[in-house]
């Protein structure tokens, strides 16, 4: 018998999940379930379980749509945001959450990501960012740091990495944030804010892949990788108080951008209304 949270929101007959020992994805999936649970049980919010839809693409991260027991769909590689846009436009009252990976959303689905952000479609995108393509054997992804090793970069990666949260913000996303596996409680709070945001929201959650990225780059096991996150990913409020010298090599987590832009499905319905009124005259 698993814990109440797991029993309530996950498909128990599909567990234990197929992720490797120490993979951060399980913690991020739990954060998502915890965030939804807290929103459903918050008397000030009007969320019901039936209003949530989980959409995923392809990759290690995208297996999460199979484990989470909601209305869920596991779609094609890179196209999760496109499917999610269709679901949101067909039924705008739904809270559509896209669970995707760094490769799925910023390489194969890069175009869908930037245009959904630009249009401000009311989706919540949670990126399970493990710096590598795990499922296919450790090829470098758009977020693999320069110089790091991957099966397709045996002498070091030449590319400069994407910062997915900044990429989305640059494309016009109205809410962008960063989280990580170590700071699970903070990340759950950020995911809650992203779900409550009216418009396109993206949370870039740094995962850990001890099997491919960690082992290839001698970053240690899952415990060592989480200790690295503890030391180098700093909650925003604390990061603000740090000196420039102390900030070297560290990154803040928390909300990066938060703007109120017109939401796409609202504007779409307004346009339909306006056209109907015009047609009646």
């Amino acid at each position, binding site marked *: 018998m698993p814990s109440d949270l797991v029993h309530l929101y996950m498909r128990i007959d599909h567990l234990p999940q197929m992720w490797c020992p120490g993979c951060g994805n399980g913690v991020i999936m739990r954060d998502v379930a915890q965030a939804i649970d807290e929103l459903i049980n918050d008397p000030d919010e009007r969320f019901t379980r039936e209003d949530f839809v989980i959409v995923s693409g392809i990759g290690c991260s995208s297996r999460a749509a199979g484990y989470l027991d909601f209305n869920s769909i596991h779609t094609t590689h890179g196209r999760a945001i496109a499917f999610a846009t269709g679901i949101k436009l067909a039924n705008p009252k739904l809270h559509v959450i896209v669970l995707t990976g760094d490769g799925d959303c910023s390489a194969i689905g890069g175009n869908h990501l930037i245009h959904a952000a630009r249009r401000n479609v009311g989706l919540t995108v949670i990126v399970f960012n493990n710096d590598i393509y795990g499922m296919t054997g450790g090829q470098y992804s758009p977020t693999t740091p320069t110089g790091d090793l991957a099966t397709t970069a045996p002498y070091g990666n030449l590319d400069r990495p994407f910062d997915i949260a900044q990429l989305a913000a640059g494309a016009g996303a109205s809410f962008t944030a960063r989280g990580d596996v170590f700071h699970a409680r903070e990340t759950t709070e950020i995911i809650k804010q992203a779900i409550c945001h009216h418009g396109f929201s993206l949370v870039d959650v740094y995962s850990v892949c001890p099997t491919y990225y960690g082992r290839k780059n001698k970053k240690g096991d899952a415990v060592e990788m*989480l200790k690295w996150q503890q030391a180098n990913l700093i909650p925003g409020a604390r990061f603000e108080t740090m000196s420039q010298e102390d900030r070297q090599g560290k990154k803040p987590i928390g909300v990066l951008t938060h703007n109120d832009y017109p939401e796409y499905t609202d504007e779409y319905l307004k346009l339909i209304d306006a056209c109907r009124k015009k047609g009646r005259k």
Partner: protein
Amino acid sequence: MIEDTWCKGCGICAAFCPRQVLEIHHGKVRAVAPEKCVSCGMCELRCPDYAIYLVNLEE
């Protein structure tokens, strides 16, 4: 509670337990000093496999 069949022995719970309650033996977690547990829930929060969690024994 430990769900033995779900534990993959990654060692995260044992490493982040502030009271050294947990250890990994033969690839599975064991509560070697349950009397030291203060129910902080760090193990449950960090276990990627949902294999360890707190229960209220009085209920």
